[in-house]
């Protein structure tokens, strides 16, 4: 705990230099430098196993093209902004019946 306290007393919060001892973390940053750019926009699919629709509590489907999480049962789509899924029901979009039929025909 003392270590944590000491490390979190930087003089200026702007300088976030890590102590060289933590080489593991530094290499993590370098490795993820390029993918960080894309992760800002893309959604982490491993979250899907945890997320459900807040209204029906059923699991969701991720739609790549529109970058949304879709609940087919209720016909609503939750947007994903900056890689962060927005699961507030008021911000969800209702999927029109035409689109639903289109999807069905595509599957066929």
């Amino acid at each position, binding site marked *: *705990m003392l270590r944590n306290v000491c490390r979190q007393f930087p003089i200026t919060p702007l300088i976030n230099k890590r102590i060289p001892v933590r080489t593991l973390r530094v290499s*993590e940053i370098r490795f993820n430098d390029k993918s960080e750019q894309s992760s800002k926009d893309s959604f982490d699919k491993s979250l899907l196993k945890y997320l459900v629709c*807040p209204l029906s509590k059923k699991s969701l489907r991720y739609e790549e093209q529109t970058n949304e999480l879709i609940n087919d049962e209720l016909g609503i789509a939750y947007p994903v902004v900056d890689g*962060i*899924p927005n*699961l507030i029901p008021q911000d969800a979009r209702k999927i029109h019946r035409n689109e639903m039929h289109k999807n069905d025909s595509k599957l066929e």
Partner: protein
Amino acid sequence: MALAGVLFFRSAENIFARCNRCAHRTPAFYRSFQLFTTVRGLMVEAPQNSTHFGFESVSEEEKTEKVYKVFANIAKKYDVMNDAMSLGIHRLWKDALLHKMNPTPGTLLLDVAGGTGDISFRFLEYVRFQLKQRTKQDVRSQQTPSWNAIAESYAAGHQNSNTVSQAIVCDINKAMLRVGKQRAAEQGYITGLSWVVGNAEELPFGDNMFDVYTIAFGIRNVTRIDMVLQEAHRVLKLGGHFLCLEFSQVTNPLLARLYDAYSFQMIPVLGEVIAGDWKSYQYLVESIRRFPDQEEFKAMIEDAGFFKVQYTNLTGGVVSIHSGFKL
């Protein structure tokens, strides 16, 4: 009959003045009080389903919106303000919460109202440190290992499926999460951390999922505390740990006076100087006064179905950690 009527109105008045704080029974009792207030409300045209926003009385929908605006405004300066207002002590409070939690590697944490991610970062630090300690102990327990064996075991100490810890930060406010994600990138927390925009009263997670649920300095801002507690109970696994870090009532009367003076005179000024927002910080100190005290909140947690509910006062009762288990 008239006397009863007068008494009834008197008690209803008390409710308007002191809101949640006067009731000390079950949520059903709270709801029946709300019914009384609405009856009185019809007579004096007060809003139905009214709740408190600081010392004001507003409707429930208004409260959610107003609180959202408060945090959207202060998001960028949130961490700086925390340090200024609490003189850095908030870091110790959050460290204390982690110690109470004492997570082991392989824990799944849901950090509600996690905003800028303080608790989740500390959680990841803690479990990674534990994992390192474990591998070191494993190595030491082997007799006179060769350098090759040590190197291999350090490499193996890297997480396997049993020891991968995951923290999910859930907040209703997108601005706070954006700041949090940026901080995470700066400080190097990439793996094991996820961000979700969600309402604590209607969590987008399945039943019986999480090992630990935390809500730090968030529960006094929600519109329906009982709903949040019920959702917390739903998403926790059997044996799951519920932890709440929140401002509470100071026990010592002298300290209480100093604290009140500091809260109402210093904090909004700091808010204006540093964040340029007097009103939000006025709301902050008022909302602390409106929140139920330690015993009352403990009763609310027990009503939601948690067992072994305890609370620990920190800094003389300025904040308190409530803990419960789903058993």
